């Protein structure tokens, strides 16, 4: 696959090895999705990478990264009630941000059809929790499709889009991390371009779109009726699959990735249970489940995260007088972590110890320390944390936010001691400052996160006159999720724009005490941090340095990369270890005799460490050019 963009627009049928997120984009194109929106967040950003691989003028749809998930959802909704099939995609906790508008969607007549794709994250691979977003579907009466692999992602999206358009109701496509990122050869159908009807179809004559007071009830009733009618579809669709192993006693009901794990686990099992795999998990397909319950004596509900299917299936058994043993969650452990084959084996062994056998635990041969993610060599956040840590006293309180700078909580910095969610830091810090005269409060906030959810907390600190310092960790990009642009980057997804200036926004919101420094300029940063934290009232420090990972990647691409390295003059070095232990750049390694070495595989020659050496033993070795 030389060009992903060309592949995604191919007219003929073809097969290609892709991840789920890429398969999703082809499905969007084949379904003639017209408007797609998102905010970056793992496990979903590769979907936007795939979109980016198609030249802008060739894209048969409009795509943007909006400033947050709620904004993205509203744009997709607006487009959909104007008649365009639309899709919004975001990560698990993104749905919390979108929720205020998301829960209203099923009340509306969605003319063009609308798919919400959410990437749940069982295993909390890159999220602050493991929330199960099926709850939101119950809350808002929205159907949920749940594919288990990339082929199904492609197929389910297309069916969901068709159903959504036909019924003029929104549908949730629930993916999970290892469905988004799984790779396999997916078979894609042919696709023909069409001419789109761009005329705006929105009309208040055909329907009411204002849900207030008494108008809410008919809208709610319609949402419930539509869901009731959708049950017929959920009951008969072949998205629900039966694996008939001829077992009259035992059966398992499952869905999504845990289904694949179960198939692997059952491979060596004699007389394996039958399996009912649900493709639609809400509204629950009652008919096939009832039949499955009646055909067996014992049923296991194998369900990742929460016990949603379990409760519903127990109700089905109760209402239909089916006297059967139903085994759901058995202990807290069953609610936690991803249902990998290894985990499913353990869960199933607990359920049916006589038929599912565990191999004896293999003892760890040698202890290996974890290798947590860390700030990259040259990262501007490191220079900021190094300085701020020196200025603050040990008792002061630092508040983290979400982004690369969250990693400051790790040693040696331990900057950022509490974390809730995107953009929380100013307001959590504000709460920590109340009645607090003796411990200074410093909150950190990334630039992309500031635009996403940070602004209300800032304007509140101005409005209610709070006494904290906010440090905006500006690196010019949404770094953690793969360098997506944000309003201050100078480009959006589609074109160059005049960058929105953070200082101007702060000024506009009424912040009077604003400081700015490049984080590599450590003595300047030190001076302004001291000033800011000792002021009464709300102060903001913009601590900026461009993301160096992005910078070096771009330099390599543009042939401007200089392969510089720092070197340590061993004659001068007194092994104080400030560079390794306090500044903590991963490019430094340490020998058993205490000598400090530079790992040239890692050093990018940025030189931000030079000023931290108390005896000036670090120098820079310049090289002209470099290797691409």
């Amino acid at each position, binding site marked *: 696959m030389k060009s992903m963009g060309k592949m995604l627009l191919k007219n003929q049928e073809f097969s290609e090895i892709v991840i789920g997120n890429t398969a999703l984009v082809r499905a969007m194109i084949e379904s003639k999705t017209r408007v797609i929106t998102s905010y970056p967040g793992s496990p979903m950003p590769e979907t936007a990478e795939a979109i980016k691989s198609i030249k802008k003028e060739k894209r048969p749809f409009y795509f943007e990264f909006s400033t947050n998930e709620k904004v993205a959802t509203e744009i997709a909704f607006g487009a959909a009630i104007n008649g365009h099939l639309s899709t919004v995609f975001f990560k698990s906790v993104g749905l919390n941000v979108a929720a205020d508008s998301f829960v209203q969607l099923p009340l509306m007549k969605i003319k063009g059809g609308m798919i919400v794709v959410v990437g749940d994250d069982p295993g909390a691979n890159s999220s602050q929790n493991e929330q199960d977003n099926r709850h939101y579907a119950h809350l808002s009466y929205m159907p949920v499709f749940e594919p288990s692999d990339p082929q199904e992602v492609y197929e389910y999206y297309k069916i969901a889009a068709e159903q959504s358009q036909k019924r003029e109701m929104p549908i949730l496509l629930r993916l999970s991390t290892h469905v988004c990122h799984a790779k396999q050869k997916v078979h894609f159908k042919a696709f023909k371009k069409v001419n789109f009807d761009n005329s705006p179809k929105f009309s208040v004559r055909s329907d009411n779109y204002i849900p207030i007071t008494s108008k809410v009830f008919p809208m709610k009733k319609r949402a419930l009726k539509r869901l009731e009618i959708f049950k017929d579809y959920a009951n008969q669709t072949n998205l629900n699959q039966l694996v008939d192993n001829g077992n009259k006693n035992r059966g398992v009901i499952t869905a999504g990735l845990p289904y694949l794990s179960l198939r692997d686990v059952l491979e060596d099992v004699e007389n394996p249970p039958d399996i009912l795999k649900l493709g639609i998990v809400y509204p629950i397909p009652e008919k096939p489940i009832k039949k499955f319950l009646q055909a067996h004596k014992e049923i296991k509900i194998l369900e990742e995260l929460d016990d949603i299917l379990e409760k519903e299936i127990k109700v089905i058994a109760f209402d239909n007088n089916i006297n059967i043993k139903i085994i759901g969650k058995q202990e807290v452990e069953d609610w936690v972590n991803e249902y990998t084959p290894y985990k499913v084996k353990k869960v199933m062994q607990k359920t049916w110890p006589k038929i599912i056998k565990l191999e004896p635990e293999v003892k760890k041969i040698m202890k290996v320390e974890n290798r947590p993610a860390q700030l*990259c060599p040259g990262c501007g956040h490191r220079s900021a944390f190094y300085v701020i840590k020196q200025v603050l006293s040990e008792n002061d309180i630092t508040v983290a936010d979400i982004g690369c700078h969250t990693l400051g909580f790790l040693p040696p910095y331990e900057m950022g001691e509490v974390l809730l969610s995107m953009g929380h830091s100013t307001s959590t810090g504000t709460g920590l400052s109340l009645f607090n005269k003796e411990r200074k409060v410093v909150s950190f906030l990334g630039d992309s996160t500031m635009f996403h959810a940070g602004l209300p907390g800032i304007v509140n600190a101005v409005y209610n006159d709070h006494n904290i310092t906010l440090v905006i960790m500006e690196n010019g990009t949404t770094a953690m999720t793969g360098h997506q642009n944000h309003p201050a980057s100078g480009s959006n997804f589609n074109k160059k724009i005049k960058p929105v200036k953070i200082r101007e926004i702060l000024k506009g919101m009424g912040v009077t005490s604003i400081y700015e420094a490049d984080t590599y300029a450590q003595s300047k940063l030190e001076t302004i941090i001291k000033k800011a934290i000792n002021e009464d009232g709300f102060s903001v420090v913009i601590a900026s340095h461009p993301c160096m990972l992005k910078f070096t990647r771009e330099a390599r691409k543009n042939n401007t990369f200089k392969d510089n390295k720092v070197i340590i003059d061993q004659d001068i070095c007194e092994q104080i270890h400030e560079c390794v232990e306090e500044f903590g750049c991963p490019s430094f390694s*340490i020998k058993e005799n205490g000598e400090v070495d530079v790992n040239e595989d890692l050093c990018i020659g940025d030189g931000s460490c030079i000023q931290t050496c108390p005896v000036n033993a670090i120098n820079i070795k310049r090289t002209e050019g470099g290797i691409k």
Partner: protein
Amino acid sequence: MQKKDRLNIYIIGVGGQGIGLLSEVLIRAADYAGLNLRGVDTHGLAQRGGTVQSHLRLGEGIHSPLIQKNKADLVISLERTEALRGINNYLKQEGTIIYYNTSWQTLDVRLRNTKEVQAKDIIKAAQKKEAELIEVYKDDLKEIRMQNIVVLGEIAKRKIVPQIRRRDYLKALDDLMEGEKLENNVSLFKTILD
């Protein structure tokens, strides 16, 4: 294909070492060799200097893209400490471990809370799992970001995945790169192989 012909390959390294490319070349080469396959990489947070892993499963009758613990026939590591982690968590008894003998010190090592993993530790660990151990290192390698291709070359040379032929690897490389980058990688791959 029989179950015995299946192959579980677990690839591990540190974010920034090119695990993604190595796994993508292997998966495409396996496809050119006509093998059924499934795989998955870890993305997201782990990219920032943390442990990165990729699962690759070849052969008929596989379902999950994820390998069960202690069930990898082959562990490939681009770094020494990660090699030990791979052996610990995923290598099956009597499997094969191939690793590039370089060290990216962990935070704990740099803060001197723990000792750095040494090549002899890997030998010991491999012995305990009665595994075949292949240590790879190329001292005249100019570009560290091509260590993955050195390991790929060794895998091809030793026919560690017997079904994948030399031409399959080359086709896979050609799929994923172009221009100077492709030339450099192919030329290095061939140097190791021949």
